[in-house]
């Protein structure tokens, strides 16, 4: 079996461990970065749209089961996020979007799609201002996630220079 098909499974466990144990310490008013999404985006750009969509669905389902969330909610949102990130895959685009700061923009877009779909299933309250809800539930976590995703770009470069 090719390593690229197994790698996401090996990556998933440490990423979820950090997401559930370390990330709460860096939460700002319950807003936390979504490391699982960053991994999904990375695999989606690296290996293509179908691979990213399936990785997103698998990660989402496993995270739903582990974290006690509504089973299917993260699966749906991460499937779409993986699909969105897949648009930035391809032989010529891969280098451009994976190893530059454009990666953070792709993460931002995918995180927005992820957060909006997830919020739709968790906060359906017609008394809430839709724009405010969009800002609080989707935009803030997405921005935080995309800021953290800079590490994915910076760390390999720093290693190369060292």
């Amino acid at each position: 079996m090719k390593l690229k098909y197994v790698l996401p499974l090996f990556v998933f466990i440490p990423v979820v461990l950090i997401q559930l144990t370390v990330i709460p310490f860096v939460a700002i008013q319950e807003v936390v970065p979504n490391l699982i999404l960053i991994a999904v985006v990375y695999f989606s750009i690296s290996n293509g749209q179908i691979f990213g969509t399936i990785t997103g669905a698998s990660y989402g389902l496993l995270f739903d089961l582990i974290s006690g969330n509504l089973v299917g909610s993260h699966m749906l949102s991460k499937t779409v996020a993986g699909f969105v990130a897949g648009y930035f895959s391809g032989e010529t685009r891969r280098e451009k979007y994976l190893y530059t700061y454009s990666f953070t923009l792709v993460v931002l877009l995918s995180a927005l799609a992820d957060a909006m779909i997830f919020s739709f299933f968790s906060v359906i309250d017609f008394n809430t201002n839709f724009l405010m809800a969009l800002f609080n539930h989707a935009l803030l976590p997405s921005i935080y996630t995309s800021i953290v995703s800079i590490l994915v770009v910076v760390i390999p470069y720093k290693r190369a220079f060292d």
Partner: protein
Amino acid sequence: MFKLLSNVWNQFKEYVVLVILVILSLSLLTQNNNPQVQKVRAVAFGSFATITSVFYDLFNITQLKNENSALRQVNAELMMQLSMLREQGILNRELKGMLELKDTISFPLIPATIVSKSLSITQNTVTINKGIREGIKPGMPVLSYRGLVGIIQSCSENFSIARTIKNVDLKLTVKNEKNRLNGIMKWDGEKLVIVDVPRTFDFDLGDRIITSEISSIIPVPIPVGIVSNIEEEKTGILNLIHIKPFEEVLSVENVFILMMLGNVEKNNLELNFYNRK
């Protein structure tokens, strides 16, 4: 036919995969109450929580678990007793000392530690290192020495997942300790609120909010928070009461599980009453 399908697949395979996975996700969303799904979830989080608990301890250097555990338990028991005393004091005043209430209620508390937190703005859950083996059951209240933290949602052999009060799926009946007015409290994604409170209800800033005995989930008074703001709704006849919780879910590490469930017999009786033809 095969050629046609092959062409469709080649041209739209990304969309076909997406549609299949979306349909799968949606069908799973409708199966959340299925016992099989709940069983799989209990096994999954139970297994993973074992790893998480070790990992969490490594990073959670601030806690001095063993030394603090006994003190926290005493604190929690005192908080419960204080809450009960406040309740009894108010009731006694109202009944002008004519009513004698026997303080026969003891609160069995199980100390537990949070081993992981799944934080999002709307769906906060925590995993606790006590499960079915210790007698924990879904529906039991989780509290700290400051106040209510959440409700047990599901259990495995050694671990449990609790919905915190900052979870949009948890709605509780609470009351104003001062004037005994009840209301439904929920997390709206940004703040804890008591919804649809008539403007004639006398709520003031700083009033203590506790769980109500009419609640089918938590039938004992547990402190929840204080009134931090009173917002008038657009209709002009209802208020939205903002609550500042006593316990901050983000920072809580050690909790207690109150070994008490809502009275099934009472709930069934009430349901039968409402359902009778």
